[in-house]
């Protein structure tokens, strides 16, 4: 198939960007979206032009490195699918596809389609962990975890930290990401001891990074490649309210 691409090009964080048009030729439906971009880049390099910079690594939907807003939707709109797992059979010959980076104040553009998502790491550093040093852990079976809690915790822990939830949100809110981590850890008996401090510290850092607030449009849930449920945000709000009452 042959496609027309409109791709955001921006030389650096401080440069002005614009949408440039490229033709993508000899695209097969078995290709992944990123393999389609590989083909376009090979052609650009052969012409001595600068290839399009985009992030990717595992290309099997788990590392969370790939991004791309495709035709206005982060990861392209196929339910439960990251860009690297989106295949060209979902497009038609002759289509025009617009490709942009994540857009959010807290995710500044680094180059072309690459953004800086280190704000997420700082939120985890603020409290997204259980404070346990290596060594001295009790036997694994000394802490029984009800299957339901383990499953719910795992549902939340499936987050790959890609940032699509932020990119789609009209407020550029990171609530789904933060709430997924809060739920993963606060649902487990191991995580209960510091659950109040955890939620408070993470929310404070989230605000400091410049993410917006949640107005429950649920667009984040719709584009999440791991289909993290909006209910984690309710859980976080509940934990946050309790923590505020307890800790002030």
């Amino acid at each position, binding site marked *: 198939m042959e496609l027309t691409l409109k791709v955001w090009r921006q*030389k*650096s964080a401080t440069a002005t960007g614009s949408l440039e048009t490229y033709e993508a030729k000899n695209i097969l439906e*078995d290709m*992944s979206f990123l*393999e389609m971009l*590989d*083909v376009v880049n*090979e052609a650009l*390099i*052969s012409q*001595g*032009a600068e*290839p399009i*910079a985009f992030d990717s*690594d*595992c*290309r*099997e*939907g788990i*590392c*969370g490195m790939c991004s791309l807003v495709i035709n206005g939707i982060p990861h392209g709109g196929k339910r439960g*699918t990251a860009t690297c797992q*989106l*295949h060209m*059979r979902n497009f038609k010959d002759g289509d025009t596809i617009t490709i942009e980076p994540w857009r959010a104040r807290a995710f500044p553009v*680094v*180059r072309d389609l690459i953004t*800086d*998502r*280190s704000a*997420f*790491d700082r939120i*985890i*550093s*603020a*409290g*997204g*962990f*259980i404070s*346990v*040093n*290596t*060594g001295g*852990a*009790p036997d*694994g*079976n000394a802490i*029984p*975890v009800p*299957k339901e809690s*383990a*499953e719910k915790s*795992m549902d939340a*822990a*499936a987050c790959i*930290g890609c940032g699509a939830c932020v990119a789609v949100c009209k407020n550029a809110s990171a609530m789904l990401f933060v709430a997924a981590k809060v739920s*993963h*850890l606060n649902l*487990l008996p*191991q995580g209960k001891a510091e659950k109040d401090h955890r939620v408070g510290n993470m929310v404070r850092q989230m605000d400091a990074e410049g993410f917006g607030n949640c107005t429950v449009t649920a667009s984040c849930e719709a584009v999440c490649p791991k289909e993290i449920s909006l209910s984690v945000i309710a859980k976080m709000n509940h934990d946050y309210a309790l923590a505020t009452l307890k800790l002030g």
Partner: protein
Amino acid sequence: MPLDSKTPSGPLAQKWDKHKFDLKLVNPANKRKFDVIVVGSGLAGASAAASLAELGYAVKCFCFQDSPRRAHSIAAQGGINAAKNYQNDGDSIYRLFYDTIKGGDFRARESNVYRLAQVSVNIIDQCVAQGVPFAREYGGLLANRSFGGAQVSRTFYARGQTGQQLLLGAYQALCRQIGLGAVEMFPRTEMLDVVVIDGHAKGIVVRNLVTGEITCHAGDAVVLATGGYGNVFFLSTNAKGCNVSATWRAYKKGALFANPCYTQIHPTCIPVRGEHQSKLTLMSESLRNDGRVWVPRRREDCLKAPSAIPEADRDYYLERKYPSYGNLAPRDISSRAAKEVCDEGRGVGPGGLGVYLDFSDAIKRLGQNVVRERYGNLFEMYENITGENAYHVPMRIFPAVHYAMGGTWVDYNLMSTLPGLFVLGEANFSDHGANRLGASALMQGLADGYFVLPYTIGNYFASSKQAKPSSNHSEFKKCVENIRAQTNKLLSIKGKRTVTSLHRELGKLLWEKCGMSRNEAGLKAALLRIPELRDEFWKNVNVTGENGELNQNLEYAGRVADFMEFAELLCLDALHRRESCGGHFREEFQTAEGEALRDDEHFAYVAAWEYTGPNKAPVLHKEPLVYEEMHMSTRSYK
């Protein structure tokens, strides 16, 4: 150079305890005076960086991805082994040790493997305490499943995302230390050289991948946890960024490289679909617990729809050839068996390079819901990539390069032949011999980082008493100049071929000549071709852009330049090892039934290669493999 493994004396089961007592300690108040550089943030790197920081060392951690959470450990699906014997099915530390040594085809160091089995139990405890959401039984206790190459259920798992959950556990421990100021993290930063001063590793030179700035970092020790070299084959299950550069550049600075020919070809991957393919995708081995592998009995049936082939005309070849292990036969054996039936013309799918992995019996026995609960995400991934629904038609799978058993040679303390340079996880050679069993890579990465290095690195500091390095030392300047020169060279060639096209050609050559099976003529041909290809790379590659900016093409060119050199060592090692063992199958050395034929008399050693200069042949050093406890036997899974 005599290779001293520093294996402690005494009975096998007491070596590690004895050694831990014999290791010198660093006073808690003095630990903060030692700077440790950790390169890589996967299971081994993140666990080491976090654990060392918890102990009080001053740690700097580097990764090329935008966040330490992206490291490729995250993609491991199936699980992690531990000798907990929670299932009461006869498991023990000794049995895990035995299975791992046997699975490695008697080419691993006995003492290391025993220690690995010992600390496996601590890993599970640690991960549970960190909040890793392992699968649970209804009573709330940990669930287990069995995995390829084992007859007990000792594999712990978190759906099909075990690597992700374990890595997030280690990443969170690392982030906690970053938040506390105990670890300084450098994402989007690539190591380009190890700096050696007075014979010791004293730092690294790195490139900031956003600005192109090259900077020096001095340390009292350098830890490489930079993963495997599978991408030398171009197509592999590794992430796009995985590379050999860190360990290769350490090799050129004096750290011997061991057993590069031991590469693991994983039996259950999605077959190649065309020239455009950028990587291959693994389907967890756990699928073989319920899926049955088969091909048509007759060649002429290969083009028929699988449902049109009656039971009697199907060849469940793993069950037929290895009745006691069946579909759970180890990876090297399963992969070779798939190649064999495809070579006979009985492969299915495009190009005849595929075999069926069929769940229809499991769906009949357990119902679609149970199968979905166990493997739902894998079936979805398969459908995303192939457009086929594996609940209705059997999956098609084919072997693909997956894991590197070979790596930097390390002693029992995980230190390389370059003092002060420690190498962990897949990047070292130590624990898997010639073949790795399923669910053992996660175990080894975390064992090295959480429970081995934190003990052994202190002994190095306490006993070597080295001068404090400075990043102004002339050696740093020299390394920076060399790197600048190479970068300028790459950017100035402006030839006709892209980095990808050269990499793809190298990979294809290696897959054909040094892939699932190897022979002398093929390896010699590859050894003639690789230098030509390398030559072409340096004369005709086209690297666009500049150094002082984010330049993915330049990053990639640097990695492929190293693959172009490393590939030669890989083939040389494969040529010299005139036996078949584990993942290394030499066609000349096989039994009448086509099984691998080991030669313990001549090849029961670790082959560690020493760099002697550009365009000079590397020198082989041998570490004899002495088995005190185990008896070397022929591996049988029949």
